[in-house]
C-alpha cells in the first residue's frame, strides 16, 4: 500500500488552443513565403458566402490566380458551385464540426497546386460563433452579414465583429423589402470595432463589388 494521495495544484498558464495556433502559424509562414494572401470568410448559414465567392471569382478571372478551400458539414454542393469559376477548389467536409481548424486547412492545402496562386479564399462553415476563435493561418478575416439575418446580428456576435478586418453586408438589393436598421447595425459595429470598414454588397446584382474588390486589391496588392 502506498501512502495516502497528496493533492497538488500545478500552475500552467498556456493557451487552450495552442496546438491549433501552432499549426496556423506554420501555415501563415508558408503562405507568406509563397506570396499568397488569404481570406477567412465567416458568415451565418444562408448569408451568401458561396454566392459572394462565385461573384468574386467571376470578376477576378484573368486578373488573379485564386484558390478556394470550402468547409461544409456534409455536402459537396458549395465546392461544385465554386469549381465553375476556379480551377483550384478543395472541399473540406467537417462532418459534425461547426468550424474549420488549422489542421484541416493545412491538410487541404497539401492537395492544391499552389504554384502561381496569389489569393486563397477559405469559406468557413456557416456559423457566426465557433469559427472566430480558431486561427487558420489566414491573412485577414472577413465577416459576412446579410440583411435577411436581421440588424441585431453584429451586436449578438461581438467576437466576429471585433476580429474582422472587413465587414461585408450582403443582400443590400433587398433593402426596400426589409426593415433592416442599417444605421443601428453600423452603430453596433462601431461600438465593438471603431475602425473596421463596412461595405454593402449584393452578390446577386453586383452592387458594391467595386468597393469590395477595390479593398481586396489594396490589401492583397
Amino acid at each position, binding site marked *: 500500500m502506498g501512502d495516502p494521495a497528496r493533492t*497538488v495544484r500545478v500552475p500552467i498558464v498556456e493557451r487552450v488552443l495552442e496546438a491549433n495556433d501552432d499549426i496556423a502559424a506554420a501555415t501563415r509562414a508558408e503562405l507568406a513565403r509563397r506570396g499568397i494572401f488569404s481570406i477567412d470568410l465567416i458568415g451565418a448559414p444562408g448569408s451568401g458566402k458561396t454566392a459572394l465567392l462565385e461573384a468574386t471569382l467571376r470578376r477576378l478571372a484573368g486578373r488573379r490566380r485564386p484558390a478556394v478551400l470550402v468547409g461544409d458539414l456534409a455536402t459537396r454542393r458549395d465546392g461544385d458551385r465554386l469549381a465553375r469559376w476556379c480551377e483550384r477548389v478543395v472541399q473540406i467536409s467537417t462532418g459534425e*464540426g461547426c468550424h474549420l481548424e488549422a489542421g484541416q486547412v493545412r491538410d487541404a492545402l497539401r492537395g492544391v497546386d499552389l504554384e502561381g496562386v496569389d489569393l486563397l479564399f477559405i469559406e468557413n462553415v456557416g456559423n457566426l460563433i465557433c469559427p472566430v476563435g480558431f486561427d487558420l493561418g489566414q491573412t485577414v478575416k472577413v465577416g459576412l452579414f446579410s440583411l435577411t439575418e436581421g440588424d441585431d446580428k453584429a451586436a449578438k456576435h461581438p467576437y466576429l465583429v471585433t476580429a474582422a478586418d472587413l465587414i461585408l453586408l450582403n443582400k443590400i438589393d433587398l433593402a426596400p423589402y426589409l426593415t433592416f436598421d442599417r444605421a443601428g447595425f453600423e452603430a453596433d459595429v462601431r461600438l465593438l470595432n471603431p475602425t473596421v470598414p463596412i461595405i454593402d454588397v449584393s452578390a446577386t446584382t453586383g452592387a458594391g463589388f467595386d468597393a469590395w474588390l477595390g479593398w481586396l486589391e489594396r490589401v492583397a496588392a
Partner: protein
Amino acid sequence: MRLVHEFSIAEALAAQVVSYAPAGARLRGVEIRVGALRGLDSEALQMAWEAVTFGTSMAGAVLEVDQRPWSITCSDCGREWTSPVPFVDCSCGNQAPSPVGGDELDLLAVTIDEEQT
C-alpha cells in the same frame, strides 16, 4: 451549435490536460480563464467537459471557469465598470458606452492527486 462550440473547446482542453496528469496520478480539477469575447457559456462548457472526459482517466475532474467580464467605458461621463454583457446603458443616460472584451482562453492550472513518495 452553441453546445458544439463548447464541445470543441472541451476536446482541445482534454487533449491538453491529459499530459499534465502523470501515470498513477488522478486529475481532480482544471482551471481555465475565458475572455468575454469568446462567448463561451460556463454551464455548457461544464456539460461538454463532463461528456468529453466520461470514461477517461480525467472523469470526475472539476472544471473551474473564470469567466472574464466586459470592461465598459462611458465616453460621456468617464465611468468605467464591468458587465457580463457588452451592450449596456450608463447610469448617466448614455445608451452607447464602449465595451471591450478579452479573447483569452487559457489553461491556468490543474489539480492532481499524486502518490506520496
